[in-house]
């Protein structure tokens, strides 16, 4: 993002200022249920990574941790050389507070399974809300950018509609435009087609393919659309019980998976389609 980023000045980059995302020994529990157990993995800038695996395997939790919707119980998450889950106090890392999170999460955008558009605002307002109030763009500038994005997702004519007047697929495309309006470096896609009627899925996936082709945004994607995963991913991570059991190129994972659990999972998913 070209705009000035106050957090970049306030925080020196970490010793290895590797860009991208890095999970270091991340643990997440919900009560007694350990969702992620000492998870380590990284994502390079611009990389497209798809997370697959049975439900309850922790994929969505990873996205929610990155969006700071959840807090880690142990370990550290680094994003572009800065700790996301923690902040530096002297030489120590302490859990991040709300003020710190507000500074660091601008680089990250998320699209939700249930769209979560603001029903009290027009489509255009949904897309301009954050640029105006977070990036402090002028209303005109934000509108202009929003209209370009709505054009990109094929909804230029719906700017003045309200979310309730749109189909699920259209709402999700607005949600994608809304996330992109913040010009994130990292885009998190959390089962973005799971709540859609089957005939609306393709339109949303086309928009995402387009974005994958036209931009260099880092994308982390939780999906059951294996065709889409194969098309856009650089790498596929197979999760089970909060750990990565297999990873590799989509060709490798989908064509010749080595791990028994990956094979079972893919059989189960492909049987449904």
């Amino acid at each position, binding site marked *: 993002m070209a705009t000035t980023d106050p957090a970049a000045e306030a925080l020196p980059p970490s010793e290895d200022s590797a860009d991208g995302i890095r999970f270091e020994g991340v643990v997440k529990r919900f009560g007694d249920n350990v969702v992620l157990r000492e998870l380590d993995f990284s994502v390079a800038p611009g990389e497209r990574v798809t997370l697959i695996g049975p439900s309850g395997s922790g994929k969505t939790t990873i996205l929610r941790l990155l969006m700071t919707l959840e807090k880690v119980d142990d370990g550290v998450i680094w994003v572009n050389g800065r700790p996301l889950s923690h902040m530096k106090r002297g030489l120590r890392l302490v859990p991040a507070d709300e003020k710190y999170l507000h500074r660091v999460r601008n680089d990250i955008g998320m699209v939700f399974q249930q769209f979560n558009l603001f029903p009290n*605002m027009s489509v255009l307002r949904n897309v301009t809300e954050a640029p105006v109030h977070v990036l402090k763009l002028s209303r005109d500038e934000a509108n202009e950018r929003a209209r370009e994005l709505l054009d990109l997702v094929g909804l230029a004519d719906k700017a003045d509609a309200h979310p309730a007047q749109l189909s699920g697929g259209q709402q999700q495309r607005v949600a994608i435009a809304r996330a992109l309006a913040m010009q994130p470096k990292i885009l998190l896609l959390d089962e973005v087609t799971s709540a859609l009627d089957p005939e609306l899925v393709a339109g949303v996936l086309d928009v995402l393919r387009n974005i994958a082709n036209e931009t260099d945004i880092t994308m982390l994607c939780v999906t059951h659309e294996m065709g889409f995963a194969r098309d856009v991913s650089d790498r596929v991570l197979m999760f089970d019980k909060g750990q990565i059991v297999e990873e590799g190129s989509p060709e490798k994972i989908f064509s010749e998976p080595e791990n028994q659990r990956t094979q079972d999972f893919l059989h189960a998913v492909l049987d449904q389609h």
Partner: protein
Amino acid sequence: MIWDWHFAGKILPDLLRGLVVTIEATLLGYAVALVLGLLWAVLRRSPSRILNQVVRWVVEFIRSTPLLVQLFFLFFALPSIGLTFSALVTGVIGLGVHYSSYTSEVYRAGIADVPVGQWEATTALNLPRRRVWFGVVLPQAVRKVIPTLGNYLIAMFKDSPLLLAITVPEMLHSAYEVGAKSLRFLEPMTIVGVLFVIVSVLSSLLLRRLEFRYGNN
């Protein structure tokens, strides 16, 4: 004692003047209750545990003490620590603060009804707190509770005769004065009752229309 139409007609202007004060006090008190209740409800969601608990108990305290006691406290006890307001202002504050403990619960229910996904979307967009409340959460929460809030307007209107106790010249006060002077209470008290019914029914009809407009759809 039989009904005297001539007397009734003669005292009506006095009672209507009282009615104006009653309506004034109710509307102003209602405005206080709407704003203060909203403040309580939002503070109850504060990330600070202490603030949140303090507000919780303050509101609980206000709700658990009788309005009449609160009015007497404001009117007779506060001047002893140097705070003196006119009877009407005291009445408005009393009604407003008392009813804010009810409206805050109504708002709270409305806020709790806003889907968690809405909050998560505001986090994902990194919206500042002010915008989260005023741009996203409150517009959705308040819309849903408008009919319930409206009911408290009528409840408050019916509680307003308590202001008589602190010498506010509202309708019951006027009726009492007229009655005391002429030693006829039948006409003034009957007229007060009828006027209360008329205003209440009119407000209900108005609220029904609001409900139709903002209600559960």
